[in-house]
């Protein structure tokens, strides 16, 4: 049992300078972990199953191309649903790109900053199933081009069987991972250059 996933992924040892530094923001540290717990050890699977959570997480971590973190979430998925792992890896390679990018809506003042990029569609939706294929497409949108999100993005999820509450949790899960992965990346570099 890993007590603190960010410490684990960033390689922070008890008593180290980064351990002491994280202790200065105790509520942020505790509740980043509680966010992880709420999303990955939920009280109910009614709106979104554990397999769906782990599959989306393995996809999102893979898109960030952060090897240790991608492995962590792939291992979680492998424990629960090893058959999905190859499908997720295939989708990660189909979705690989660099962001953020996206077209600003309408003809307004931000149009000059619009930046076209990949609008990922699941490569092999049959391997994922309808709900998960839609979830991956939404997760890719959130990771790389969140400024392009619109009502129609949520309509696509609804057509694939996602409830409003399921969409909220799915969105939280993807968005939380973009936070967790960045904290880990940042702390690793801070650790490498630590002066104290």
């Amino acid at each position, binding site marked *: 049992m890993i007590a603190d996933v960010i410490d684990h992924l960033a390689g922070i040892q008890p008593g180290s300078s980064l351990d002491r*530094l*994280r202790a*200065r*923001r105790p*509520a*942020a540290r*505790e*509740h*980043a972990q*509680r*966010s992880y*717990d*709420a*999303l990955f050890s939920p*009280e109910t699977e009614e709106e979104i199953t554990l397999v769906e959570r782990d599959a989306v997480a393995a996809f999102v971590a893979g898109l*960030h*191309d*952060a090897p240790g973190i991608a492995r962590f979430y792939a291992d979680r998925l492998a424990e629960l649903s090893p058959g999905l792992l190859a499908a997720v890896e295939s989708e990660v390679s189909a979705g690989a790109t*660099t962001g*953020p990018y*996206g077209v*600003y*809506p*309408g*003809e*307004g*003042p*931000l*149009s000059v*900053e619009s930046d076209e990029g990949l609008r990922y569609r699941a490569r092999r939706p049959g391997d994922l199933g309808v709900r998960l294929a839609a979830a991956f497409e*939404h997760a890719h*949108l*959130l*990771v790389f081009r*969140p*400024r392009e999100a619109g009502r129609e*993005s*949520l309509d696509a999820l609804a057509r694939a069987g996602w409830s*409003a509450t399921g*969409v*909220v*949790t799915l*969105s*939280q899960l*993807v*968005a*939380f991972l*973009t*936070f*967790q992965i*960045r*904290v880990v*990346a*940042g702390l690793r*570099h*801070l650790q*490498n*250059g*630590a*002066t104290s």
Partner: protein
Amino acid sequence: MTQLAFTRDQLGWEPWLTPLETDELTDEHYEALVDKARAKSPYFLLLARDPATLQARTRTDNDIFYNADGGLPRAGRELAATATSRRNGCVFCASVHARFAAHYSKRADDVQRLLDEGVNAPQDGEWQAIIDASVALAATPAEFGANHVEALRAAGLDDLAISDVIHAAAFFNWANRLMLSLGEPVEEPAS
């Protein structure tokens, strides 16, 4: 959809999914909202559909931005939130945190230049280092590296302050994605 420019004006936000109604709220929901005033916000009432995650999210947020035990002053944390929102394209988040950044720094012109011209607009050394670090953290895959840590240190930030930049910027990657994908900003403040 109307398109708004980046602004420090007060904006409203309208959800695309149905938030909970106030009369549906249980003690668990109020605990998740943390601050009772948030029971009037359509954004938090929508997130309250998953109360356990909302509560943990909000307490993470509050400590990253409000914990005043050393580290980076509030203005710098708000600057990181604004720069992240500017880079990701979240007009609503940027409006809120640009107001905070301008208020705490008393540097409204510099904040406005970040909104008007973007993350590449010239800024002084410390602000440049915070904005550059935030932009690198907004990238997928992450572009944040030892050079950003060195630049922040050269600008006078200690390790706790650098950690605050990392957490504030990382947190807004979370916040921007929810605000951008679950609803949209509107010109009139929602009453």
